[in-house]
């Protein structure tokens, strides 16, 4: 077995894979796509072009907020805005081609069209195999758990989301869950590179290999194999039901969590709920040549559009700025959001306050102006 593994590493070694560190450094190396298919980055004279899909529901409102914040902080990004709604189904392909050529996108809630979920379409077409949510709680916000800092990695393109379901005999449906070694390996490697770069100490692999011995077994084994290349990081594994229980009872024992597709979805929602609800957290999708940023949980509840919490989507914008290496702009906006939530205590109803979204925006923008006074950033 060892020789097989080492042989595989020789041909499929980490040098040829693109990792988190590569992507953050603007390099991509990959086996999946030949180099000629990697398009030039649309950065012209220091300005980036980014696809923006406002979608439906609270999406357009939140995108307005993001644009306002970016304008206030002089972020050099031009948005290519594409409206998708039920009436314009053909737009989905256009949106996809825009994502492919721009490489970076930010999206709201995309409606489910026809027979397939467009979110899943996006992930599989753009090969966004990593989904990551950085759950970091804000002090001074009403929540069940304080002071939590957990990163959840979720394999985003296969598993239960392979969209392979059929009814071969009336009354009996088969749903296929796909786990492949290649995808799991590059996913794990990406996650471990990220953990190394961020100085994380411990990785927890979540699975159900006691029941699904082959599929989750392969996932677990592959991740543990990759983990051996990173001896600095402590690795343990947990069965998903146990993990959920631990998360609500002892959430601080977690640092980085690695999961297959469906479990990741559940775990992300649990943590979001623990630290203040879906109005705060953003999610990041990464592939070899593209990245899509969105809110971590789609279950943002609001009675009136004016009470939508803008923070989740602004955090997605901050993630995007970090990815585009606009660290100065990102930290200005991050500090402004932090000060608004923690020091000024401007909270929308979903996190226990009574302010409207636009009041929060005014506070964030005035905090940005404060930050800009001491910052040394280019204004174009």
């Amino acid at each position, binding site marked *: 077995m060892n020789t097989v593994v080492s042989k595989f590493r020789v041909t499929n070694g980490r040098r040829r894979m693109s990792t988190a560190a590569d992507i953050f450094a603007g390099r991509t190396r990959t086996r999946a796509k030949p180099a000629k298919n990697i398009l030039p980055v649309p950065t012209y004279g220091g300005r980036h072009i980014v696809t923006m899909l406002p979608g439906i529901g609270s999406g357009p409102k939140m995108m307005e907020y993001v644009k306002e914040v970016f304008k206030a902080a002089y972020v050099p990004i031009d948005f290519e805005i594409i409206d998708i709604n039920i009436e314009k189904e053909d737009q989905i392909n256009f949106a996809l081609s825009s994502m492919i050529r721009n490489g970076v996108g930010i999206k709201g809630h995309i409606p489910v069209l026809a027979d397939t979920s467009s979110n899943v379409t996006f992930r599989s077409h753009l090969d966004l195999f990593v989904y990551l949510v950085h759950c970091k709680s804000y002090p001074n916000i009403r929540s069940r758990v304080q002071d939590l800092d957990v990163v959840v990695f979720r394999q985003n393109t296969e598993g239960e989301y392979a969209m392979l379901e059929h009814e071969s005999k009336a009354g009996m449906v088969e749903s296929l869950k796909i786990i492949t070694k290649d995808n799991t390996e590059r996913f794990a490697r990406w996650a471990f590179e990220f953990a190394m770069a961020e100085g994380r100490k411990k990785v927890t692999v979540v699975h159900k290999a006691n029941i699904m011995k082959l599929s989750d077994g392969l996932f677990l084994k592959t991740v543990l194999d990759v983990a051996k290349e990173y001896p600095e990081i402590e690795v343990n594994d947990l069965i998903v039901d146990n993990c959920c229980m631990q998360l609500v009872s002892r959430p601080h024992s977690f640092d980085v969590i690695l999961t297959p597709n469906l479990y990741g979805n559940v775990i992300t929602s649990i943590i979001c709920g623990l630290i203040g609800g879906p109005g705060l957290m953003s999610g990041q999708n990464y592939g070899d040549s593209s990245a899509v940023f969105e809110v971590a949980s789609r279950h943002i509840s609001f009675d009136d559009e004016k009470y939508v919490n803008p923070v989740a989507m602004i955090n997605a914008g901050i993630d995007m700025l970090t990815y585009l290496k606009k660290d100065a702009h990102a930290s200005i906006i991050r500090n402004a959001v932090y000060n608004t939530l923690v020091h000024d205590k401007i909270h929308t109803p979903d996190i226990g306050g009574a302010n409207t979204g636009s009041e929060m925006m005014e506070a964030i923008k005035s905090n940005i102006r404060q930050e800009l006074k001491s910052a040394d950033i280019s204004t*174009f």
Partner: protein
Amino acid sequence: MSVIARNVNRLALQAMCSSVRSIHCTTANPNPTSGLEERPDARTTCTLIPGDGVGPELMHSVQEVFKASGIPVDFEAYFFSEVNPTLSAPLDVVANSINKNRVCLKGILASPDYSHTGELQTLNMKLRNALDLYANVVHVKSLPGIKCRHDNIDCVIIREQTEGEYSALEHEGVKGVVECLKIVTAKKSLRIAKFAFDYATKNQRKKVTAVHKANIMKLGDGLFLKSCEDMAKLYPKIEFEKMIVDNCTMQMVSKPQQFDVMVTPNLYGNIVDNLACGLVGGAGVVAGASYSANAVVFEPGARHTYSEAVGKNIANPTAMLLAASKMLRHINLPVYGDMLRNAVEKVLRDGKVRTKDIGGQSSTQEFTYAVIHNLEMPKAAQAAVAR
């Protein structure tokens, strides 16, 4: 000693340029700390290369206008020239300055027809390669008040300018036989094609025309054309057409309104640029810009130094002023940019002050003062300043 003797004229020129070389600061603004609402108190530093020929005169005109309207831009000026090598700032100093400031306003550099040192690359090419300024964009638009053969021209010519015929690879392998290599690479062709389509998307343009000569140069231009075709597939909402360069030039002079965005390799772009500039009033009225991933160099669209007119105060500053207006838009000062553009257009439309090239008798200075006289702060901007 002999160096000084040879450069007496140049020293005189240097003295003339001395105002350009020093970093200029705007004192004319009565309220210097307040800009517009969008930019509370930030000032932008911009590299300035006056260039050869009438370049220094035109830059002086730009600086006069900036001073008069209190535009919060500081210039970092470098004299940079190939025909005056002893006065020229070193290439790496200029390149570092542009990389640092990320924006530059540049006159035209003269390229001598022969080389003293056997060097094949011109200074212009060296600067472009040092900064990787790969995309030259010239927006050719009919201006009000300038009589031409055609009206309503509005096309954008995008030219690859780091490879192709300008690779400076020429040699005489056998006496009497010179080979000149034209380099076309897939990487750079895709890059310029993507630039053109992204430009079209961003500016709500409808059509991209690839100009080529792939019927003769089947491999070289063929690769360029193929790259454009491949890229077009990713942009379903933008019409794509291809045109052979000889036909393109004919169409350009007979029916220029049909063109929207054009993407060309290096040499054809140069020719089409100049042709199109000629259609709307000549080299004195069209602005252009060169883009790299990080920096933009704004310059006149057609590259003529107009060295016959040096010191005569007759050159037309329109191109340089419009380039400055584009620069202001780029650095997040669109209100000032529009103000400058409107003032120039108003002077041209009124037609009372015209330089020689567009059928008048006025001097550069008179034109500049006319522009300054017509500068009109938009109401919103006035309110912001008052606050």
